[in-house]
């Protein structure tokens, strides 16, 4: 798990924030960093994400979708445990920035499996009370039901 390994690596808070900036800066190169407001990755403001036009569709979708009032990008797309949160931001910051600058990514953009797991944990984080029972009975080695299998529209509206 990311949290525990972050701890094992003995990463401190300032260390982590550095890592984030590092990740983003390396990824974007100075110009991009300033231009695309790399600090966005530390902020909770959705507009931060849309500094990249390629996030525009998701932003528009989010504004129309059911969670607009109750959840922002980071609520769903970054872990809720403090360390893991910034660790993920560093990782994504690096990944997205690189891809963005190099312009080599698959379109339409698709969530990566590891971020899909983060996402699912976010759902459960907020809805644990409600879904506790349906999750409680899965076999240990089995991934319990993927929320998005049925609720794919909650984040950005229906895709079809």
């Amino acid at each position: 798990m990311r949290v525990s390994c972050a701890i094992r690596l003995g990463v401190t808070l300032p260390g982590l924030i550095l890592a984030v900036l590092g990740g983003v800066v390396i990824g974007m190169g100075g110009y991009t960093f300033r231009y695309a407001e790399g600090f966005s990755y530390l902020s909770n403001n959705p507009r931060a994400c849309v500094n990249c036009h390629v996030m525009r569709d998701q932003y528009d979708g989010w504004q129309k979708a059911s969670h607009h009032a109750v959840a922002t990008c980071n609520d769903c797309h970054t872990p809720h445990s403090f360390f893991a949160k910034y660790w993920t931001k560093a990782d994504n910051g690096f990944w997205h920035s690189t891809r963005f600058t190099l312009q080599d990514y698959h379109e339409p953009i698709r969530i990566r499996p590891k971020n899909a797991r983060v996402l699912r944990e976010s759902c459960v984080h907020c809805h644990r009370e409600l879904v506790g029972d349906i999750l409680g009975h899965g076999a240990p080695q089995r991934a319990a039901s993927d929320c998005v299998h049925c609720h794919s529209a909650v984040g950005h509206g229906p895709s079809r």
Partner: protein
Amino acid sequence: NIAERKREGQEYYLRLVELDEDTTDPAVWGKNFPREYDGYVRTAENTNRRHGGSEAISKLDEDPRLRRIFAGYPFSVDYRERRGHAFMLEDQDRTERVRQFKQPGACLHCHASIIPAYRRAGDGDVMRGFEAVCAMPLEQARKLVEHPVACLDCHDPRTMQLRVTRPGFLNGIRQLARSDDPLPHLPSIESWRTGPRDRDYDPNRMATRQELRSFVCGQCHVEYYFQPDNKMVTYPWQRGLKVEQIEAYYDEIEFTDYQHGETAAPILKAQHPEFETWSQGIHARSGVACADCHMPYKREGAIKVSDHQVRSPLLTIARSCQTCHRYPEAEISARAEAIQARTAALMDRAENALIELFDTIKAARVQGAADDRLAAAQRLQRRAQWRVDFVNAENSLGFHAPQESARILGEAIDYARQGQLSVLRADPRRSAE
């Protein structure tokens, strides 16, 4: 990964009673899981969309052609529309197919919570007990069971995990895994196939949770036959799940359910191939499980449970369909009904072709046609009738796989008509062409 399960896993229920492998009575489980139990008992409610009343409707009265199609077989005497799970044992006891005909214990495989009975009959060995009970006369076996399908059949009493228990299914799915029929909708089998294969495919250890949400139903909602010698319930999946693969299997082992009462053709009877048909459809391919539609989640106050009143999803469209299809309820049922109407139209054509084939063969007999003159027609009747019955016995009227069901009926029509042609062609009064 314990940590993860801990976070989600707090099981919000009071373990009021201890459950074990011998707790067949659902009411006892209901003490721990009142919500699921409540839904379960409601399967006794009438759920027929087309008819009021809670009596089982006779399919024979609704479509008299079926009496002729099943001529010479118990189904021509009594064949009704299914009802809810609560009725499965009672309806089997009451059908004339049981009252007027001798049936084996095998019948109970899918109509009762029977695993503990198997275990006892096999002194601890379920498989041996299964074989023993299948071979018994039904009356004798009937005394060993008291409940319709129950919690135990789909759940591990300790962990509540889904599981499959039916010997017929465990044997069948193992055979299917060994076949080379592509199964894009069953990822755990596809990945087992790429492995060493030193151990057999075992759904309870290898299947994903999503697959189990269909397997538990596939335990019973499948085509089957009884092995002639020992009456063992067998699922004919050795070559695959498609209609022609199953047919090829039956042809290979030279199996026949009955001789047709009007034409003496060697007929195969298809029973409720929901699992096989669903497997050919776009929903299965998209990872949509039986339980997604037939046991949709249901919000009960602060928590969400699986609706255990298993029934037609068209009665619960908001929960069964609308999470995935964001159209109004009326539009969604209109779509399902449009699919069913097309299937019904083709089915009607196919049954007429079959009936006309019977008439053609009988007329030839009246004119003293020799058996060899009719042999080709009888073989074609077997092909045609197998296909008509496969779609007819499948209970979604084509919904589970619309195009595939239409393809099957198109073939049925072709074979039935070819049968008629072969009879007329062989008419001695015509100079051979």
